[in-house]
């Protein structure tokens, strides 16, 4: 029991980092972490001792997140995933990779791609681990990763952060 709690707590900062990057918003991120912790505690008996607790907690967060996204689908602009939907955008005054630019660009990467990008690039999971967390084949991880990276590159390089589309925060 004690060991469980200690282990749980160790993963909270990383869950928060991931949640922040995923949602782009502090409040939503902390809601997500809170819901994830609750569910993890309720379902803890389902966790296989000896298996990777971090991966298990990230899996729970993924499931909670997906449910939230579905519930809020109508309120989100971040689900746009077709390049053609984005109008051509002019480069901003500044070509540097600005913090705000990255945040906005990330919000324009479709959720399913963003999750892969963050698990790999930010959380530094292997492709196998990311596949396990998301419950998808590794080939799908690779194709989503590839699309996410190229999408992000286009958004950042092309000044794609100019707010032609309103980003719902």
């Amino acid at each position: 029991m004690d060991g469980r709690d200690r282990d749980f707590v160790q993963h909270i900062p990383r869950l928060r980092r991931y949640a922040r990057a995923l949602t782009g918003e502090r409040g939503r991120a902390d809601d997500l972490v809170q819901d994830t912790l609750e569910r993890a505690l309720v379902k803890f008996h389902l966790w296989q001792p000896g298996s990777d607790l971090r991966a298990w907690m990230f899996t729970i967060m993924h499931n909670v997140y997906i449910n939230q996204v579905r519930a809020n689908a109508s309120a989100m602009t971040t689900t746009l995933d077709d390049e053609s939907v984005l109008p051509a955008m002019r480069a901003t005054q500044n070509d540097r990779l600005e913090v705000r630019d990255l945040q906005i660009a990330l919000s324009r990467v479709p959720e399913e791609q963003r999750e892969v990008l963050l698990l790999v690039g930010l959380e530094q999971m292997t492709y196998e681990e990311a596949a396990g967390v998301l419950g998808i084949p590794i080939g799908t991880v690779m194709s989503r990763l590839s699309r996410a990276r190229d999408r992000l590159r286009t958004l950042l390089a092309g000044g794609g952060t100019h707010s032609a589309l309103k980003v719902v925060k």
Partner: protein
Amino acid sequence: MSELAVTEAELHAYVDGLLPEARRVEVEAYLAAHAEDAQRVRAWREQNHAMRDLFDPVLAESLPARVLRPRLAHRIRPLLRYAAAAGLLMFGGTAGWYLHDYSVAKSVDTVAFAHRAAIAHIVYSPQVRHPVEVGADQEAHLVAWLSKCLGETLKVPQLGSLGYQLVGGRLLPGDQGPVAHFMFQDGSGQRLTLYVRNGGGGKETAFRYAQERGVSVFYWIDGRFGYALSGEVDKSELLRVAKVVYQQLNP
């Protein structure tokens, strides 16, 4: 020179440091000869770095109270203790011991309260031209106004005997509603701030001490209000003042 076949997946694995060493060297050689792929790889790597730069600070952030105030408080309680022990909570060390005495939600909330008080001190005490909204020259008005905002009669402690004079006060938004913020200053310009909010719930607590970014905070709940006294002074000096504040406000 024979062409090495490098897959898209391998380019990603190269960026993510997931290739075996021998293959990594081969991919490097491939990239040296393929400028366009090399450029993509560079951009991807930069994305990884930028994401970490942007979000790694979250790892060091204090946990807000509400994250650990779930509906299943009884299950979370032991978690909190570990969070406190691990220094994850704001004022982790302090949280650790008083968690035993109070309900989890209340304690974490109180810790967050001290945190907000420290931030208010950090923000307002260095202000030169506008440290307060209403100055001490209008003390009666200040007290009447803030009392009206909080819906309870407030008192301002008189700290002249300790060398601190009232500078004035302001209204602040707290996490539960309005907060009255009073500022005091001694002859050397050393400032202390007193952060007062509603919601004591009739309880009383002992003084609790916390530190954040060089600011010391003593905080306590007494009757209808929660108080936090903050200053960039020694713990002993702050305690000396806190005791007087406490005595004056609770005759």
